[in-house]
């Protein structure tokens, strides 16, 4: 590493460090809740290391507890992660020329917070050279990902000690609500969430948790259509 790339790494680390306030409790909770669901500590850790995507880990956990079929669990959990295809595409102009082995590592470590911080910086400073962009990216993920593992582990250890009368079953929906509420930032998002809830109730009779796929698809279309509608109206005005 040269002086400039070291500086970029440290800067990425610094810029991403406020997000530890989100990552630490979230990872702790996952550890606690997954232990509560009956997983062994090494199983909880396997999930956090192989997947490193909190929302989809919670999704998979909740659906496996309901004994949903494997393909439904995968479909729902992967759908939750589809947003990362957008991240992947958005990083191409900045990091697409990095060596393949680094891109593999970058992909594995791609999480919401580090993506948001690095793309914001790249867009503000398009002249940043490739090696500094790479170091900056790894600085960002270093602030977040090791903590994800560590706090999942801590949570799993704590989880063993928490008695069942603390209703930890409800920590799963509460975590999801905490994740979803800040997403209500535009009318299409609100409509999409609303359709999602109504769909879940209206189709709850469906077997194999298919209601989740139907409600999710309808809600996604509702969000996109609302966006198109607002765009058309803005053009006409």
């Amino acid at each position, binding site marked *: 590493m040269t002086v400039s790339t070291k500086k970029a790494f440290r800067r990425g680390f610094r810029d991403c460090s406020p997000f530890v306030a989100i990552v630490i409790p979230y990872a702790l909770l996952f550890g606690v809740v997954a232990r509560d669901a009956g997983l062994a500590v090494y199983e909880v850790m396997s999930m956090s290391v*192989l*997947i490193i995507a909190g929302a989809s880990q919670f999704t998979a956990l909740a659906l496996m507890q309901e004994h949903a079929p494997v393909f439904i669990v995968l479909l729902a959990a*992967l759908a939750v992660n589809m947003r990362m295809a957008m991240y*992947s*595409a958005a990083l*191409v102009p900045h990091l*697409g020329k990095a060596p393949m082995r680094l891109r593999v590592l970058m992909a594995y470590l*791609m999480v919401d917070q580090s993506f948001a911080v690095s793309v914001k910086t790249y867009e503000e400073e398009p002249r940043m050279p490739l090696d500094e962009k790479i170091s900056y990216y790894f600085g960002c993920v270093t602030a977040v990902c090791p903590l994800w593992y560590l706090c999942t582990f801590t949570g799993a250890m704590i989880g063993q000690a928490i008695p069942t009368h603390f209703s930890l079953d409800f920590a799963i929906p509460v975590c999801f609500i905490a994740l979803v*509420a800040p997403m209500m930032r535009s009318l299409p998002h609100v409509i999409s969430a609303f359709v999602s809830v109504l769909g879940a109730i209206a189709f709850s009779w469906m077997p194999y948790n298919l209601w989740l796929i139907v409600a999710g698809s309808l809600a996604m279309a509702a969000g996109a259509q609302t966006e198109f509608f607002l765009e058309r109206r803005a053009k006409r005005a």
Partner: protein
Amino acid sequence: MIEKDIFWIVTCLLGAGTFLIRFSFLGLLGGRALPGWVLSHLRYVAVAVLPALITPLVLWPPATGGETDAARLIAALAAFLVGLRNSIVGAVVAGMGTLYLMQYLLG
């Protein structure tokens, strides 16, 4: 209880699938752009799937055998209202705190 073989199948495939999603453009598709309508749909995937997943857990919680539970409804609402102000930690604390309070008050 989660069955062991189901757990490992899901964890391994979900890990592989999630990696492929992350690797997709950066690693395989290069600079190819996504069509606008695809992007518009992807934007809403998380907000479309998660509320549907939450709804039955809140309305018909497994812990009460599927009986609607006032304490959990109020706790969910509290978590949502605090979460709207962008505080994930606050929302979790408000949700679980309200649940314990309600369970205490409602017996």
